[in-house]
């Protein structure tokens, strides 16, 4: 694709990695700074999603695999990450509901029973 000025515009591996790093950083911030247990889980899901994007971008652009030699291993990895993320979300949300039954709150600042 060429801009009107004549500069060529293309999308490279680095573009995808920068987007992935941004989303991972935002997910880290959410996971560390939110008070609600469900919001913390949202941050963790965003981080997992950013890692998936990294895996797929490397799978698409990397020349480490010569042609015809399992070029889609990254896709298989992403399928496993999706599986683990689904199981993790189910367990974590069950724990949030359990916490609510015990303490009537999912505020992580007030779940400090084990603080020394």
């Amino acid at each position, binding site marked *: *694709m060429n801009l009107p000025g004549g500069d060529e515009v293309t999308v490279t591996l680095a573009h995808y990695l920068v*987007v992935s790093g941004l989303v991972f950083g935002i997910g880290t911030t959410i996971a560390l700074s939110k008070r609600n247990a*469900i*919001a913390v889980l*949202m941050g963790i899901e965003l981080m997992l999603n950013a890692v998936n*994007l990294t895996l797929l971008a490397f799978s698409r652009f990397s*020349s480490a695999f010569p042609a015809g030699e399992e070029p889609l291993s990254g896709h298989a990895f992403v399928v496993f990450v999706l599986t683990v993320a689904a199981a993790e979300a189910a367990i974590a949300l069950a724990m949030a509901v359990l916490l609510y039954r015990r303490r009537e709150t999912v505020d992580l600042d007030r779940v400090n029973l084990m603080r020394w």
Partner: protein
Amino acid sequence: MDSTGIVIGFWVLSAITVVSSLLVLVARNLMHALAFLVLAFLGMAGLFITLSADFVAVAQVLIYAGSISVLMVFAVMLTPLASRDNGNSLYVLPGVVAGLGIASLVAFVAVDTEWAERTGAALAESDFASTVGEVGRLLLGRYVLAFEVASVLLLIGLLGAIVLVQERRRAATQSPDEAADTGARDGGAL
């Protein structure tokens, strides 16, 4: 990756994904944050499509934007007396510093490294008409053991979630009027 559609699609979808993620961080209401999270997941699925990963993109829409978000809505609805604002804890400053540090570190390394990447014609040569068949062959061929372990993990996760949230049966040891009393209390609390 230099066709017009992919370049425009990449920039639009990246903007949607990053801005929605930021809105998850700053939204005032938990349900609004959840809606923006779904939007971020959908933008990410679009980015997967620009990487010609069609199977993973569809799986992303089904699992993340479909199931996990519905699960989160259920979790919010099952905690009715908890606060619904998307408030920050005392650790917001360390969180922002850690997030900015990680993002800038990844961006710096990604831009600064000379990646051994395919470009132009070599990249077009590695195009797949559809990745579904090849991913299926990998999952049931080389990675079949990991595939089976993942299925067992999902089963254990399902059973664990059910066991964790099931109501304890107390009614068997109570007289009927006491049970009715408990039921009325629980109903009132909900």
